[in-house]
């Protein structure tokens, strides 16, 4: 699904990712844990194609394609989805038409015809009910005035409808109380299949109780310093970053 080879990335001459390598196969869930400033957000932004980052060397192969030359939206259409840590407000842009535009952009790039309005409405209704998103919320503008929980639910709603091959959950647990965390995790788990993959980026082990990873990687100073199974996260929780490296 995704292979990152020897990736070195800098921002304003400061190296953020240093010879970073990672391989993710179909059907796997990987957790990337690391302290502040370890390069977690840079990793997700570089994968998604955000500029401001200087790629010094390395390769990113997604679905057998080197994606360096692809723009942000081309990567998205290829099946990459980022659930943002801080989803931005789009005043006046209503949730459902936004979602429909996104779906249709993808369909158009695949040479398919636009989604049928009734089918779309049905899918939105079903997914919103599952995620505890009220009808009132669906009438609002994208992320405008949303609580932390609402924002993350809306991210997962979009993930559900866009049905990506690879999802990156960037600190999805931040700003969530335990109930919202459970709903959001349930929403993500429902989408897990044999042919898609998930990367969970997080500070804390807490989220991994609900979205159980196959692999856990510890990222320090732009490099994976240890990898293991889900028990590594528990060990990390006990010992802290300083003592585990």
């Amino acid at each position, binding site marked *: 699904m995704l292979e990152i080879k020897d990736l070195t990335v800098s921002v304003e001459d400061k190296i953020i990712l240093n010879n970073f390598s990672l391989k993710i196969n179909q059907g796997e869930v990987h957790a990337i844990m690391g302290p502040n400033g370890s390069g977690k957000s840079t990793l997700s932004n570089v994968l998604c194609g955000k500029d401001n980052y200087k790629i010094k060397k390395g390769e990113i192969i997604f679905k057998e394609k080197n994606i360096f030359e692809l723009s942000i939206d081309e990567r998205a259409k290829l099946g990459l989805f980022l659930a943002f840590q801080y989803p*931005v407000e789009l005043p006046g842009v209503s949730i459902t038409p936004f979602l429909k535009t*996104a779906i249709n*952009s993808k369909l158009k790039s695949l040479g398919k015809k636009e989604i049928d309005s009734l089918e779309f409405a049905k899918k939105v209704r079903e997914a919103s009910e599952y995620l505890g998103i009220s009808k009132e919320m669906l009438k609002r503008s994208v992320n405008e005035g949303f609580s932390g929980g609402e924002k993350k639910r809306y991210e997962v709603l979009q993930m559900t409808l866009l049905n990506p091959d690879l999802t990156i959950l960037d600190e999805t647990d931040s700003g969530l109380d335990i109930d919202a965390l459970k709903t959001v995790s349930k929403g993500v788990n429902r989408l897990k299949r044999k042919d898609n993959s998930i990367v969970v980026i997080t500070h804390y082990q807490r989220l991994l109780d609900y979205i159980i990873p196959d692999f856990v990687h510890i990222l320090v100073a732009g490099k994976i310093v240890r990898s293991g199974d889900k028990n590594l996260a528990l060990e990390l929780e006990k010992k802290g970053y300083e003592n585990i490296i």
Partner: protein
Amino acid sequence: MPNLNTLNNIKKISSEKYKDGFVTDLESERPKKGLSEEIIKFISNKKNEPEWMLNWRLKAYEVWKNMKEPDWSELNYDKIDYQDIYYFSAPKGFESKPKSLDEIDPKLIETYNKLGIPLKEQKILAGVAVDAVFDSVSVATTYREKLSKLGIIFCPISEAIIKHPDLIKKYLGTVIPTTDHYFAALNSAVFTDGSFVYVPEGVKCPMELSTYFRINAEETGQFERTLIIADKGSYVSYLEGCTAPKRDSNQLHAANVELIAMEDAEIKYSTVQNWYPGDENGKGGIYNFVTKRGICKGNNSKISWTQVETGSAITWKYPSCILKGDNSIGEFYSVAITNNFQQADTGTKMIHLGKNTKSKIISKGISSGKSQNTYRGLVRFSKNSSNSRNYTQCDSLLIGNKCGAHTIPYIESNNNSSVAEHEASTSKISEDQLYYCQQRGLTNEEAVSIIVNGFCKQVLQNLPMEFAVEAQQLVGISLEGSVG
């Protein structure tokens, strides 16, 4: 930190997107250039006008000759040479207006089809009557019979002058006097065509009325004159659309639009202005100097202006309401988008004369490229307009860092029971907003378009439904290639 790659990407998107910029190859008939008594007589004669109309024009011309072009706006443009303009142009063979669509040159029908304005009634958007004005003449008016059964008059103003002289004499120039200002006087002297609407007492007009203005001939000015009268208790919704071919030279459009709402009447006037804005280097484009003014003459009357201004090199336009009747209401909803080197100086005047009058102003200015976008508005409460209210909201959105947004509100209150509220904001499309949209699979241009449409929603939702979708697309198209 400006995100260069994104900026470049957006820059790459072609700015050659003015899709209505084609020229129709038609032989046109024009007198020589320049403005003189002779030309005014020529126009009046072409229109078979009665003598009183010619005299009215000549009087306006005398006034105009002694006036000076206003220079108080923020606009910069080369001085207009009024002797270097054609004041009349008609497709050849328009000596008398064709009686039916079958008599119209197929090229003309084709032109309107290309613009998405089919003139054959069976193909027309259901529920929209169209008057199509090509250069200086009206070429077709649809659905007239259906409307006339209700007593509604919807025809070219040149025809109204001949067929309904009493109404014209009674109302023309009563809202915008010929002496009002330079462009009003100029228009009064040389106006060529436009629409006339009269809705009789108690009639609610069952369909949208619309006029489509097209400038085709080169170096030709278009002087549109529109007069709408809504009699007691009536209602009418009117929409105008405008396009012009791409040309290197600037062309002048100076319109006068007058609205009169009697007691309990309501007029809703919407504009989608998409005149050719000039190219990405600021060459060419329409100079749009327009006077639009409505009077809420009777008590409880209402006039609502909605405008989407995306075109023109220069826009100078202040659709206004004189709230004379007690409890009357004036509204102004505006989206003004400027790109490349476009300049817009637009806003409104709300003149409160009657008691308990209300006005509402929602203005959304979007500037990109190297354009300048100014909101200029006046709210005046007269001595007698007690207990009146105004609410004004002016929002500016900047795209890129070479454009300008300016807000110049004037508020004058001459009584102490009226209240004016003014809110203003300025914002930018952030890189994070673009990133978010693009990560969901939207291209740069789709992202800009959806964000700007969100910003304008309050205004766009006031457009008649048939045109709202078109306007949304237009917002996107106008901003293509906008960041840089």
